């Protein structure tokens, strides 16, 4: 009985951290970018206000849309939440970590993307098709790069289960520093930028048809559905940042259940997230968006780096 309560609490903590922190990360990125541009920028809590407003608004549905259009936002949230309970943030191993591993996470991300891309085509809008086409093309290189870079870390720990990997890495911090991990980190960082649609791959703030990718795909979404989709993509950012943080710097992560350890872990996690968010903001501020057909070169770099890191691990070992 005690176990069930602990597990339930842990699950709520895990879900709560990601679901509630997601808009905060976006706020930090926006604020940092504004500061770099010498603006004051909106409050870091602005994304929460945006979401609340969108949740209250009515949904406009295209007359051409099928059931897929209304189904997708729910599926997207659901698949993202399943990923959330598999990717450790402040504690490892997670209560339901045995449901899936990194391959599952990658393919669950693909599941959400698959339906979102279909929803883009559903309304018969040219923009939607454009966004879907670009999103799927970029994903076709990013997804393998993501899997490979995590595999490179996973084989070190002898598991593809994220909770077990993170736990084993945090108990033997010496194994973190090896060349294969460095390559994997760079690859996963590029993947993070591409998957979360940031500059230089995509620009979340533009609605210019020449450049937009993700925004084009969800152009027809409005009101509450849009809130779900935005929220899911904010959670996706947290997922990727916690992968970066906990796979490569699992310092401070709680592996035993004690209030002290959890407290330290939460503080460490928020600090790491904030740092990474500022890092993303710096990358966004110092780079121009790449031309669409330059993007594959960058992504191929990530793919090759991640492959090299895996080969390196296979040949040299830890």
């Amino acid at each position, binding site marked *: 009985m005690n176990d069930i309560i602990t597990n339930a609490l842990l699950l709520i903590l895990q879900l709560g951290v990601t679901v509630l922190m997601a808009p905060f990360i976006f706020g930090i990125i926006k604020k940092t970018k504004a500061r770099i541009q010498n603006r004051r920028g909106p409050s870091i809590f602005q994304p929460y206000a945006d979401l609340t407003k969108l*949740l*209250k608004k*009515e*949904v*406009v549905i*295209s*007359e*051409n849309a*099928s059931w*897929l259009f209304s189904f997708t936002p*729910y*599926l997207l*949230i*659901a698949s993202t939440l399943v990923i959330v*309970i598999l990717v450790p943030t402040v504690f490892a191993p997670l209560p*339901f970590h*045995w*449901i*899936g591993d990194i391959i*599952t996470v990658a*393919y669950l991300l*693909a599941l959400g*993307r*698959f339906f979102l*891309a*279909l929803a883009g*085509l559903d*309304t*018969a809008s*040219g923009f*939607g*098709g*454009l966004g*879907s*086409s670009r999103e*799927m*093309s970029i*994903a*076709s290189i*990013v*997804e*393998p790069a993501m*899997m*490979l870079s995590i*595999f490179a870390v*996973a*084989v070190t720990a*002898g598991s*593809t*289960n994220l909770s077990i990997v993170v736990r084993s890495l945090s108990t033997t911090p010496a194994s973190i520093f090896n060349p294969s991990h460095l390559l994997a980190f760079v690859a996963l960082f590029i993947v993070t930028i591409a998957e979360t649609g940031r500059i230089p791959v995509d620009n979340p703030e533009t609605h210019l048809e020449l450049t937009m990718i993700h925004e084009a795909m969800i152009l027809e979404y409005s009101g*509450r559905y849009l809130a*779900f989709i935005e929220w899911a993509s904010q959670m996706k950012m947290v997922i990727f940042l916690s992968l970066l943080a906990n796979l490569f710097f699992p310092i401070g992560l709680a592996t035993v259940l004690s209030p002290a350890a959890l407290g330290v872990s939460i503080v460490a996690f928020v600090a790491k997230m904030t740092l990474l968010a500022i890092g993303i903001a710096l990358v966004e501020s110092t780079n121009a968006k790449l031309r*669409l*057909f330059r993007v*594959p070169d960058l992504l191929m770099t990530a793919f090759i780096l991640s*492959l090299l890191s895996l*080969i390196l*691990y*296979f*040949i040299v070992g830890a």
Partner: protein
Amino acid sequence: MIFIPRKRLASDSALKVAEAGKNVGFILSCLGSVAGLLLSFSIFLSGQSLHLELPQTTPLGAMAFTVDQLSAFFLGTASFLGAAISLYSLGYTSEYFHKRHVGLFIFLYNTLFLTLVALLSAANFVFFLFAWEVMSFTIYFLIVFEHDDEASRRAGFLYVVMSHVGTAILTGMILVFFVQAGSFDFAALRSNAHQITPTLKSVIFLCSFIGFGVKAGIVPLHIWLPEAHPATPSNISALMSGVIIKTGIYGIVRVSFDLLGTGPMWWGILVLAVAVVSAVLGVLYALMEHDLKRLLAYHSIENIGIILMGVGAALVFNSTGNKTVAALALIAGLYHVLNHATFKGLLFLGAGSVVRATHTRNIEELGGLAKKLPYTSFFFLIGAVAISALPPLNGFISEWLTFQALLLGFTTADLTVKLAIPVTVALLALTGALAAACFVKAYGITFLGLPRSNAADKAKESPRSMLVAMGILALGCVVLGIFPGIALSALNPLSASLLGASMTNEVSLVGPTMILSASPSTSIAPALMLALLAGFAGLPIVAGILMGGKLRTRIAKTWVCGIETLRPRMQYTATGFSKPIRLIFSSIYRARHEIEISEDVSPYFKTEIRYEVTMEHIFEEKLYKPAMRGILSVARFGRRIQTGHIQSYLAYIFIVLIILLWATG
């Protein structure tokens, strides 16, 4: 081919007789399939093989059947798909009545099943080859069934040529086997295989890989496949893609694992190399295809690649002594055989339903079918999710197992393996991601948006028997996905009998729904995953109501930049959709673009733009065309002795006779 005379068709009573005949034919094949399914279940449950020998023996060996676990697995796969397809055919062939000879079709259809069963249960090579050839010819007649179509006749010719090159090589293999081991009988060959020298074993392996590879459609022997699949009626396409090409896999596994007892590492490396090339090229060509059935055909090449990744990895790991990992890899490959049969069968049946309703296979002319064919589109979507390896459906499970088997390979000491495995993992991941992109295109352009042609606009849903058949296969995709333990626990003793090792050391099953992997210790629980997906989908509903009250919706027009009405032609096309991929992989596609623009008054007023893009298929250009030119020039050279005068032929006979007498004397 024979037509039912039109006059007879006009009479109602004749039509009724034909209809009844058709129903009897397909219901019988459906019952036969169910019997086959029961047989294979009983063999798996009892663990005993079935042996049957017909009294009449031919000079080369007895007509003998043995259904062991390997046969039973393929037989079960074939029967499951066969039962669904037979049901589907009841409705599907009804449109043939005014055009084709349905009786002939049913005859060919059932002959195909018969030869398939004979092939999978043959106990010796003579009988096997006989069944193989009859099956090949039956398929030829089914490909050219719609013989008034030039493309079908061409596809049939290509198929016959390729198929016979394969059979010739297989015959060679069987003869080498016979000379070395002194029998055509599988059981005798199995026990005598140790007498064969390693070199000749490798020769036998290579012959079987090429000969069976033609049927399986591995790159570069695949060229018949994308032509033949779209040419046949869709129920046959489903059967070909789901089962017939798997007989190639059956042959490869039977010869290299069962009869030869595996071999050196380079066998596995060769299979892996062919597998990754097939998988990646298959999906890349599928992305460029706008003919729905050709697109699916290229995906068959891709999936054969994925299956062979498991088979190849099994050969590699077996040679390095990691027997349990080898067992896991083989099981992953075989599970993908079953899964691919299920979802690709489903997709081809869905495509058949679309073609039946719209009379076109070109997806650029389709669109909006989700509203016209609601059931077909839903089942097709399930198939699309499954083939894209998305959780929690069945395609995901077999790819997951393949990934696990490959990742276990990092303990191998050999450098070639250490290089080959990460590359295979990378390309498997790439294949999965590209397949998802391709099925967004295939489903999105075909079923979503606005209809791009009148035919698509007027489409009507298919008859119930077709829908039920698709529903069965869709359910199969879900069940095989969330309860993988059922099939895997049956495959475990099979791998034990082939490799002498089972996967239980590496992967264990917790109930039917959960798979645990030991060495990269990890697990998946697809049933719980599905439950969680359903449960979590409720959260946003609750959150939305709590924060903003009841959901309010309004139907409005799609935003088209202020233009009055949205026309179907303003939508994205399949060509446009795949353009970024075409650019990313331009070095593989070697696409040639042609743009023609007609202008009026000034360049700002364009009256017409024509855009054409053609792809160079690298193996056709660089391998088959030179080979064909070579054969033609040899033939031209040979023509010189064909004078056409009977005297010269008599002289040739005389000369040959003298040479023979001299040679033997």
